Structures are given as C-alpha cells and as structure tokens.
C-alpha cells in the first residue's frame, strides 16, 4: 500500500452531498460531526468544498435533477477518493424503487463516469452515527 493511500486512511476529510434525501440521513450526518461522537480522533473533518474532500457522504436516492450535479461533484473531488452511500435510499433506492424521478442508486450513477470508483455502503433509515463511524472505519481499513 503506497504512502498516498496510507495517509488517506489517517486523515479522511468528508464532504456531504444531498441528492434528494428526505433529510433524515442528513440530520444523522450532522449529528455525527458534533463533539459527542468526536470523529476528529480519526482525523475526519467536515470540509466546505469537494475539492478538499477525500470522502463523499452521499445521502438520498439520486433524482434525475441531481444526477448530473452529483457527477460534477464527484469529478471535482481529487482522486483517490471514497464515496459513502449513506442510508437505504442511497444504497439501493429504498422505498423509492421504480419511482419516476429516480435516476438510480448512488453506485449506478457514479459508475457511469468511473467504473472503478470505490463505493462503501452504510445502510439504515437513517443509519445511526455509530453505524456510520463503523462503516467509515471498516471502509478505510480495507483500502
């Protein structure tokens, strides 16, 4: 494992993208970043721009309107990066399966431009912050 991946594991900066979520997962992500769960011990920091990010926390089933925007955000994230599909809707469209406005779950949309994207799934509706931490740590340990 080269030094780039090793340092990425030690200091993953996250950027939060909402592609049409009901906001439940977003509330849980914001809860995650409060001092109570202290994700700074893992080096995780919330950044304000996708260009500073190493991990994208994507919530929501990707709507048709949001799909090109999610792809643009993904393109602007410098590689190597990890995409976390947070919540049942992001992992596999959840209750919006076959909906008229759905462009696909997150992995289907992202693999249109990058078939080798690293995508991690954190299911739940919404997933608890502890589940998200566990997902992030597990994903980083298999990088």
């Amino acid at each position: 494992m080269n030094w780039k991946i090793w340092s990425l594991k030690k200091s993953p900066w996250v950027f939060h993208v909402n592609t049409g979520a009901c906001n439940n997962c977003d509330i849980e992500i914001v809860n995650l970043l409060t001092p109570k769960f202290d994700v700074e011990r893992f080096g995780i920091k919330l950044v304000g721009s996708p260009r500073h990010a190493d991990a994208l926390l994507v919530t929501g089933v990707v709507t048709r309107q949001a799909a090109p925007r999610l792809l643009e955000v993904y393109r602007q994230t410098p590689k190597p990066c990890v995409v976390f599909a947070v919540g049942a809707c992001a992992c596999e469209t959840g209750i919006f399966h076959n909906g008229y406005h759905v462009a696909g779950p997150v992995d289907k949309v992202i693999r249109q431009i990058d078939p080798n994207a690293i995508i991690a799934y954190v299911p739940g509706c919404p997933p608890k912050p502890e589940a998200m931490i566990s997902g992030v740590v597990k994903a980083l340990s298999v990088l």
Partner: protein
Amino acid sequence: MPVRTLEVFSRGFAVGEGKRAIMTDTMQRMFWIVVFPGFAFTLFLGLLAGWVVRKVSALVQWRVGPPLCQPFMDVLKLMGKETLIPADAHRTMFILAPVVGFSGILVLAAMLWQACLNPQVPFVGDVIVAMYIMVLPSLALIIGSSASASPHAAFGASREMKLILGYELPLVLALIVVITKSGGQLSLAALAGQTPVLSVSGLIGFLVSLLCVQAKLGFVPFDIAEAETEVSSGVLIEYSGTLLAIWKIMQALMLVALPLFLVVVFMGGLGTSGWPLVWGICKLVLVLVLVILIKNTNPRLRIDQAVRFFWVYCGIAAAAAVILAAIGRGYGIGWL
C-alpha cells in the same frame, strides 16, 4: 544538552567567524534556511503548534481530539492527492499565489530566528521590513482566491481585503508604541533587547497586536474569510492537492512566526542559551495559549463587526497607547 548545542550552532554559523568551520559558508546558510531553524524546523514546530491548538480545543469541548501525528498526516495526504485547477481560473496566479505566500512567511521566520539566535549579525532586518513581509501571506490569499474564478472565492477575497484594512491600522499603531519606547531604533535585534509589555502602553499595544495576529492567523473570532459553513471555505474553495498543502504549510509557519514576532517585539525576544532560552520558549507558549484561549471562547464575527471592532476599539486603544508611550518617553517615566 540542547541549549549548549544551540550556542555551538549559532557561533559556528556567524558570518566571518570560522574558528572551526564545520561546513562552508554557503552550506551553512542553506542549512540555516532549509533545515534549522528555517523551513523544516519551523514547519515541524508549526504543525506541532497546530496540533496543540486542536487538542486543547478538543479538551475544552470534553472530547478526545486528534492524535499527535494528525497535522503531519493532513499535509502528507494533501501532497498525495491530484491537483485540480478550474478551467476558468487564471492559471499562473492560481499556482503562484500559495508559493508567494509561503515564501513570504518563510523569509519572515528566517529573519526572526536570525534576530533571536544570532543577534550580533549586522543587518537582520528591522521591524518595518517585518511588517511589510507580514502582509504577503494575506495578500497571496487574496490573489489566489481572486484567480479562482468562483463566486464563493470572490466573497472570501473581498472579506479578507476588508479584514486586512481593519487590522493593519491598530497593528501599525501598536508597533509605533514599541518603536517609541525603544527611542527610535528599528532593528529587530535592538527591539528584542527591551520588554515593552511591562509598561502600560506596551501592555495595551501587546493586547491590540495579539488580536491583530489572531485575525492574521485566520482564527475565530476572525476567520471570516475561510468560514467553512458560510462561504464553503471562501478563499481556498478551488484549491486541492499540492497547492492546498502549500497553503496549509503556510498557515502552520504563520502559527510559529507571528507569535515569535510578538515575543521579539513586545516581550524581549528569545534568549540564546541557558535559562533565558527556556524563559523565551515559555513566552512563546504563553502567546500561543492566549491565541487558543481567544479562539475557543468566542463565536465568529461578521465582517462589519470585525472592521468596526478594529478601527474603533483597537484603533483608539492603540492611539492612546502611542500617546502614553510618547509621554513616557518624553518625561522619562518608565512604566508608562
């Protein structure tokens, strides 16, 4: 013992004194600039200081905080990411801006270390040169964000410009206090010989310039330009990869150079060896602790509140300090 080693190094690197020249003159200077106490040493100290800031903030918030290697890992990781430059950005300025800022703060740090550890060298740079060079990092931030071709960056740039307009005035006034007390001497080595902070006007000047340094470092309550939640990291929004790493390195160097500047100008500098050196390091740590304290106990200000604060409150206080210093100097009252 480390303090004895410091003395040996500083004597060995003095220009023209080659009693037992370990290396040639150029190599000595290169070592001085690049390794100790130039770039590598200041960077190490700066990242360490950055860790201290984050750890203390975490402890104040009853949480654990990052491990010691965290800031080093951050910079290393940024070096390993790809550097994306927006298509509309002005490429040359975009790339040059962090380099200019970084070199500016590096020159300032080298000057200050030279003045502290090697005061007998003839021209080390005086306080006016230091003031000019101190503007370079902030200027580079403005140029870099203006070259970014992003409305958020434009917001950040305009706020940073207003902030600079705000704090430069009280900072210059506070430095005038120091120059007045020294009787008109400008060189850093001479200013390091006196301790203005023990007098009334010097104390006011120190507090005013502490707040100006807080704004220059971009810490709360004055981190208006790089507010994460408000303007999506305003000035640095389009930077990534190695260029962002250079910005972070510049911020780390600033975290050492600016408190060192305050110590040299207001608190009597670092000693060169023995107990004065230990006391000097304590003074540096004290300034850092004050910066962290202010950072952790205040919310972020709006830009108009910040400019009003600097011009009205700090400006009037610094002007009063200048008058007191002039009176003290004129009538020979030492404590004024």
